[in-house]
């Protein structure tokens, strides 16, 4: 087993061995979730704070349930109800949370690097639940967990990530995880949202959807992040759907057993044809279930990590 880290801040700094440790640990936690009694006492007496400075429902709920299944106490602290509007700094708010004797702080923030910033001065363990357009480590972990569960392993698979790459922390974390585990990654979408610079991360970039889908084992669809971009990135939603939306005809280019993934929330009729989202090729709901197992593994592992490593 290979895990000594006190925090989970990003995927970029993890080794393939560390990624595999999280996935193996998550596999045992998935079994816990399938039992009649879904709770284990591993984090009994620990306090977890969900510190969400950006709206999120599904990630917050997933962390909440994960902490509860580990017998930790969890409180939710969200920005709209908080002191930010009264002028308190992020540092002071985080220190206040720590003064409640929080053991683990799960942070979602609109600024990239916010979790790294907190990790520098907090004694508590810090888990990144999404920082700006930078990383969303637990989403990538649950995605590769789902792929590994369905395909047996990651190395050598052709994974196509489709859509808004530029503004997507999910894409960045997924690219790091997939590349470290040996997958071939293809990125596709409007050229304004899929800059060539991603080739430096070891990805293939193409603006031709048919080419991107040919031979794919996995198709990961990303939502257009309306809240993070200006209106000028592509002409219209209708045009995006026509050029880059996944439908049955285009899916035929991929391998016959290709998986369709989506981190949610999905826009039916935009990035995915509605019928495909409900087909047996889609593993979108399994991703949600696996998210709990992976987040349980992360909370469990960081709680045991005490090294000075970040």
């Amino acid at each position: 087993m290979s895990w000594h880290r006190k925090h989970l801040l990003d995927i970029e700094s993890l080794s393939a061995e560390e990624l595999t440790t999280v996935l193996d640990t998550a596999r045992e936690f998935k079994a816990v979730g399938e039992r009649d009694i879904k709770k284990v006492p591993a984090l009994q007496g620990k306090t977890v704070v969900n510190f969400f400075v950006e709206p999120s429902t599904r990630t917050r709920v997933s962390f909440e349930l994960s902490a509860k299944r580990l017998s930790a106490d969890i409180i939710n602290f969200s920005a709209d109800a908080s002191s930010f509007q009264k002028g308190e700094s992020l540092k002071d708010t985080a220190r206040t949370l720590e003064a409640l004797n929080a053991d683990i702080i799960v942070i979602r923030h609109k600024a990239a690097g916010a979790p790294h910033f907190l990790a520098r001065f907090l004694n508590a363990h810090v888990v990144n639940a999404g920082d700006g357009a930078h990383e969303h480590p637990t989403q990538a972990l649950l995605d590769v967990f789902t792929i590994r569960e369905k395909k047996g392993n990651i190395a050598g698979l052709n994974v196509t990530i489709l859509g808004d790459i530029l503004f997507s922390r999910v894409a960045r974390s997924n690219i790091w995880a997939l590349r470290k585990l040996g997958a071939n990654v293809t990125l596709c979408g409007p050229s304004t949202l899929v800059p060539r610079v991603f080739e430096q991360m070891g990805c293939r970039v193409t603006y031709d959807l048919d080419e991107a889908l040919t031979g794919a084992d996995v198709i990961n669809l990303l939502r257009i992040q309306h809240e993070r971009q200006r209106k000028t990135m592509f002409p219209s939603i209708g045009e995006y759907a026509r050029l880059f939306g996944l439908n049955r005809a285009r899916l035929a280019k991929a391998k016959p057993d290709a998986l369709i993934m989506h981190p949610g929330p999905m826009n039916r009729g935009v990035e995915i044809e509605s019928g495909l989202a409900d087909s047996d090729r889609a593993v979108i709901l399994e991703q949600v279930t696996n998210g709990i197992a992976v987040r349980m593994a992360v909370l469990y592992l960081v709680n045991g990590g005490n090294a000075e490593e970040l």
Partner: protein
Amino acid sequence: MADPNASRTVPEADALARAWRRVAHEIAEAHADGGAVILVGIQRGGVALAQHLGETLGGIYGQAVAVGSVEPGLHRDDLSQRGMAELRPTELTGDLANKVVVLIDDVLSTGRTVRASIDAVMAFGRPQCIRLAVLIDRGHRELPIRPDFVGKNLPTHPDEHVEVRTDNSGTPIAVTIKK
């Protein structure tokens, strides 16, 4: 004079295998209904021994005996001090009600692993009873736990480490005491 730091190997392979067969007979004597017995190996030293015991017991009962495994890691009381345990599968299928769960481990010492394993089994159901069979009891108990079936009592020093090796069939072949 022998080097006090050298590891010593005890007892002989034949004696170990015989002791483990005797344990099988003692379990069969205490629990006549083989269909009610589930052997549960504690991850990970107890798993191979449970498999081997299952085969022996199957021969004695004249019917296959259920064998499973349990991971005590999530129920340990020293997670904060020792860091997180590597997790291995818990395999307990079927209803545990009216079943005799026999926990199997290679070495019994403080009793904390057994305590955690009992809790892990209880999360799956309420067996009629839980018994404990170990190949080696090395003493130094820290909890009020006592094995029901023991292959061999082995006096050791608290800071020594006892290791059991099994062959591919799960037959115990060597016990080594290390400093």
